């Protein structure tokens, strides 16, 4: 008779570990390195096999989507601004628009941001028109269907941010992406009872059409970008100068410009940690730093090419990221602006948008070459590249506040949801599985320098056009380098010195 005592298999106390059922003697487990290598190889193959980054495309726009506005306080809501002045607030969990504002602006929408607080349970969204030069603050319950008790939300600084589940639920029934894991077996009916979600499409459209902005500001010039202060009711817009506005005042608080420069400013972004500092990128190939406390422009750098977007690192407050027209991305430390701290190369078209992951370790960029790339902060090559056949020029990208997903807005009128980690499993993962995944990741990381593993890990299939463009670009750069070398060879010694790549990016730092 076989009899087993449960005591042999259970931990002796609740805190002690489970008894180990195997012998750890090293001589019983020989060839550790070869075995681990083989496992690493398998792991990296599995990683590639499971890499299915595309989640969904959120349609509804009649024109291309040229700007995205993520609500950094809610996980599941994003607004897209179309080329025809339409603004649509999407729910990522439901994967359908929460609200459509068909004629928010005349002409293109320049930028969208969300207010730091809500009033009367109504979340505020601020949109800026690129052509009509108006700024509109919209408030609707439909933006934040989960909020019912306003005292929970009003005026609190990131009451939700830490991921305490109770708060989260109160805050956000529309957008608990990560928690529900985007599994579509969520019972819709139940959810729709939650708040303003129980709208049918017709009703919703009607609501959108009839929605009036709570506040309208007018500006002489068109607005290319807008960003909100982290905590205060202050936001900044980018036209030919950077203007600071208050939500409660009708006129601009101040006008920030560097000297008498009146060139078009493309984007403006507030620093999230050093909250009074903001930076802008302009059409005159400049990046300028401001502080709203002094109300002054502080420093400006002129680069070789125009920067299209800017983003501040959420964990390293002095680090900013520029998406440049020269296909590269640059990180700068604002304490030392005369050269970038890192150059990120990989795109073969101008980089139109960039955004840091909330973890600050990675960022995403979208390019005119119809791809989205993901990068590690520490390495100059992209970690991953996303593309689909139907995705056209990408004009804006953003990370969701949970760092799980990446959103891209493109010319084809869709907002696409991508996983930030292509092979990550969505949904509930058991602890055993999680451990296995982590083990695999560790193995891949450890052996990633080895050729067999690396070649699998780094290989990405890209569209033919991009492949060719990459090759062409490589050739061009190479030939340019050769030419330069030759020139140097035939010039007087020491006359022409090779210039470091990082030094080339910045032409001048203006004080």
């Amino acid at each position, binding site marked *: 008779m076989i009899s087993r005592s449960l005591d042999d298999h259970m931990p002796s106390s609740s805190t002690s570990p489970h008894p180990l059922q195997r012998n750890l003697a090293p001589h019983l*487990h020989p060839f550790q390195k070869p075995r681990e290598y083989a496992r690493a190889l398998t792991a990296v193959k599995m990683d590639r096999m499971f890499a299915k980054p595309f989640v969904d495309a959120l349609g509804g726009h009649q024109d291309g989507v040229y700007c995205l506005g993520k609500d950094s306080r809610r996980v599941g809501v994003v607004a897209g601004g179309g080329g025809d002045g339409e603004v649509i607030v999407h729910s990522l969990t439901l994967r359908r628009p929460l609200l459509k504002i068909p004629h928010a602006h005349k002409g293109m929408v320049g930028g969208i941001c969300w207010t730091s607080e809500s009033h009367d349970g109504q979340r505020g969204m601020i949109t800026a028109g690129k052509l009509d030069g108006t700024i509109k603050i919209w408030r609707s319950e439909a933006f934040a269907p989960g909020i019912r008790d306003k005292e929970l939300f009003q005026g609190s600084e990131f009451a939700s941010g830490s991921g305490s589940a109770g708060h989260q639920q109160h805050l956000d029934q529309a957008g608990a992406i990560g928690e529900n894991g985007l599994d579509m077996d969520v019972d819709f009916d139940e959810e729709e009872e939650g708040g303003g979600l129980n709208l049918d499409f017709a009703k919703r459209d009607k609501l959108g059409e009839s929605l009036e902005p709570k506040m309208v500001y007018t500006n002489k010039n068109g607005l290319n970008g807008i960003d909100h202060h982290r905590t205060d009711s202050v936001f900044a817009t980018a036209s030919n100068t950077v203007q600071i506005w208050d939500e409660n005042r009708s006129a601009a608080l101040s006008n920030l410009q560097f000297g008498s420069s009146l060139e078009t400013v493309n984007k403006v972004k507030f620093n999230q940690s050093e909250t009074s500092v903001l930076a802008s990128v302009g059409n005159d190939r400049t990046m300028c730093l401001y502080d709203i406390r002094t109300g002054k422009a502080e420093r400006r750098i002129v680069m070789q090419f125009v920067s299209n977007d800017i983003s501040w690192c959420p964990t390293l407050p002095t680090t900013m990221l520029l998406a440049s027209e020269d296909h590269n991305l640059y990180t700068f430390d604002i304490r030392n602006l005369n050269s970038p701290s890192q150059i990120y190369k990989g795109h073969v078209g101008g980089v139109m948008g960039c955004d840091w992951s909330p973890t600050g370790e990675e960022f995403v960029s979208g390019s005119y070459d119809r791809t989205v790339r993901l990068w590690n902060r520490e390495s100059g090559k992209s970690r991953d590249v996303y593309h689909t056949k139907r995705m056209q020029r990408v004009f804006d990208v953003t990370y969701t506040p949970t760092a799980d997903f990446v959103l891209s807005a493109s010319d084809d009128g869709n907002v696409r949801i991508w996983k930030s980690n292509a092979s990550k499993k969505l949904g509930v993962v058991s602890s055993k599985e999680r451990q296995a995944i982590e083990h695999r990741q560790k193995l891949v990381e450890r052996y990633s320098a080895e050729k067999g593993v690396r070649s699998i890990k780094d290989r990405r299939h890209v569209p033919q056009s991009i492949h060719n463009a990459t090759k062409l670009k490589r050739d061009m750069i190479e030939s340019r380098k050769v030419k330069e070398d030759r020139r140097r060879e035939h010039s007087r010694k020491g006359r022409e010195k090779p210039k470091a790549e990082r030094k080339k990016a910045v032409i001048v730092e203006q004080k």
Partner: protein
Amino acid sequence: MARGSQPFSASTSSGNKRTNPISSSKAKRRQDPSNAYTYIPALPKRHRTSAAQLSVSKDELELAGPSRRGNEDSDDEDEDMQSRIKKVAMMIADDENTGEIESDESDIDSDEAWQSDGSDEERWGDVFRELDKGKAKKGKSKAKEVVRKPAKPLTVNLDESDEEFVSKSKGKGKKAVKAPSSVEEDEEDEETSDGDGELDEDDEEEEMSEGSEDNEEEEEEDEDEDSEAELPSDLSEDEEDPENLDGLDAFVDSLVSEDKKRKADGQEKVEQAKKRRVLPVVSGPGLKDNGDLALKNNQKLDLSSLISSHPSLSGASALLPSKSDNKKSTSILKQGLVSAPLPTVVQDRLDREAAYEKTREEGQKWAGVMKRVKEAEHLSFPLQPEQRGGVKGTNEILSGFKPSNKLESAVTALLNKANLTDDSLTKREDLALEAQEMTLEEIKERRDALRYQRELMFRAETKAKRVAKIKSKTFRKLARKRAAKENPGMDLEDLERLDPEAAAEEREKLERDRARERATLRHGAKTGRWARDIGGDNAELEDRRRAKEEMLNMKEKLQRKIMGKDEGSDSSSDEDEESGEDEEMIKSRAFDQLAALDAKNAADQEAKGKAGKGLMQMAFMKKAEEREMKKVAETEAELRRDIEMFGEERGTEDEDDEEEEDERPRMLRVGGNEGRMFFSGPQRTSTIQDDETPQPAQTKRPSVSSKPREPTPPIEESLPDHNPWLTSTSSAGPSRKRNTLVGSANAKAEDKTTRSLKKAVKGKEAELDDEKVEISLEANTTSTPTSNKEGKNKKATQPTNGDVSDSEDENEELLPISGKGIKAFQQRDLVAQAFAGDNVVEEFAREKEKQVEMDAPKVEDTSLPGWGTWGGKGAKKKKHVNPKFLVKTAGIEPTQRKDFSRSNVIITEKKDKKASQFLLQDLPYPYTSKEQYERSFDNPVGSEWNSRSAFQKGTLPRVVKKPGAIIEPVRRMF
């Protein structure tokens, strides 16, 4: 204006002012450099007459600008003035904020000047912004106004300078549009700040006068606009009386508060709003009452007097700064000639730089956080905890400890009762120290001394420990010697006196030592230092050499004995070996000595011919020597006789060898069987012959060459500098020798011995060997003579030596094995038989050679004969082959091999292709060395090799976050 450049300071000016009698002479005023109004050559009469007017307008401040340039060296003064300016600026700014008083051009300019003050930036940001806006609009109109006015000749002049300026500073065109006065001041300021020194003195002068005139004009305007807003002022009086400035200064101070009050009241008059900012509008509490009076009396207006004048404020006079303080406080009007504002472009730049510096500083504060984030092994989000405040340290907890429950309070009470609290303890310590009546210094000194002592002891102890651990005998010996040298023991005599017993013991010990020394001959007459010193002849040297050799011989013999001990039991010759050996030794030594003496005598005889010197040449020594010689001769004769009688010993020198020969067993192989041997008894053979042909032991088969060993050649005739006995015993173990002895047929065994020998005997011997190889008689069983090979292959040829019958080496090597037991032979023989034909060493050498050849670079000639050349008869063969037909194969030169100098190993130089695919070309990024990278693989991550917790810890990803939770940007926590 030379006066303007004169340096002056506040203290001198105030001193002047005090001592000066009240006078109204203009000339005197001009001499006084401290007086701001020195630079106003002609103020309109109205000013002087309008006694009640006080216009502390910024125009005047500006006006003061030029003169201020002169006193750049008085910094404190400047600072003081700066603060004053700020005060006024605040006042003005307040006005402007409300937007009730219109600011005109001059105001703006002064504002600019104040704006340069970086510290106020943050507070006044808004103000400045608005001011800037106003400036942009109004500057132009004002400029026009100025131009419209009937300009004086000087103004024209100014215009010229204006143009100059414009041309000088391009890109500042916007600035240049401004009012002339402001531009001028800009220019001036630029000069002062940059230190260009572009403007010469004349220009300055012009500006001064111009400024004054401007002022004049504006004053006129003022007059027109607000004639009723006249205030009691001593401005006009000041023209006559500079001393009243102090009063004015105080008055201005009071006005600040006044102004604020007024603002708070919110009573603004339209007229006031219209006019340009003339600061004091509403009279102060005591001003209206006393002002006129005070001014009439030409007295100084003082704040204290103002306050005291009012009954309600009389008590407040105590709060006022004393007179001496007043003395220090300097007035804007007096010496504070405000510098002109910078051009906005420059000003902006400075502002920006300052602001950027500030931002950078703020950024720098994040450096620690960022470093931690970057270097963190794991980041767990949220990074920052919800609540602020960390874990308290123990000290913090202890200091704030208060008993909360019964037990705690009881314990505290007990502690208090026992005086065990911290306070009481320290108190007690202090008391104890006091009781010792030592000063603090003394205590400290004593403590230091003690500490030093302890330190020394500790060191000595550790050193002793370390020394005690040393095992080296040499060190011990040296240490002993050193110790003896350092503290030599007592003299024997002293010891005798003190302790006779110990002395006797000591003496006995010494005697014994001496006896032993003599017995061992270590310090014999021939070898000692003394002996060496007394005579240095050739003969003696020879003697010494011989003596040495003898000693060596003795040693050998002994060793041989030791080796052949078991054999000795078999041999019938010496049954009582133990005792016999010693005797023998002694005897032989005795003979040695005798011989040596003889030789020495002979030498001495020879030497006597020469006129020698030294101890030995003295008469008594000679006599004694003779006597001794005689004695010795006698003893010798006796000895010889004895020996002859017993017949056991023969000649002195050669007998050793003979004896050896005797002891050695003679052996012959029986029936071709290596295992069986016949040992002949001790043979008597004639002795010292080098070329003696050996007695061939008859063997049945010729193929197996077994020859009796040659008798040992005398040592003198062997290699002079090498004693094979010594080497054979030391380098090669007995087993090898036995092997060789067993079978000369067994080439393998012989190999070994020869090789070992070969190691010991080097140089020319090697050559000798080769020669001998050539004359090898028999090609033996296994060993094929590879003697054709070069020196490189010498080792391979070695084995053949074993067969050579008459080689010296062989003899040498074979000899020591002489004394062995039969059993051992049998054993060895068996082993040899078992491994017969296993030429491991040779095979290995061959294999290695093959490997080396294979790995060596090769050049193959692939050209076909006859192709590309002339053929037929008489055709010459090409000397050089076309290099394209030479196929070169890369390889490694034999000399470059790793195993080149190691004969016992083969190290493969081949590249392992299969393994090479796992090798990296470059070092991955974070690693700095190969070792470091390799070490990263040392600890496997898998669960087979780790405990559960280690596995989990090892596989934890760098970024850990809660699923679905918002990650907020880092918050400022400092």
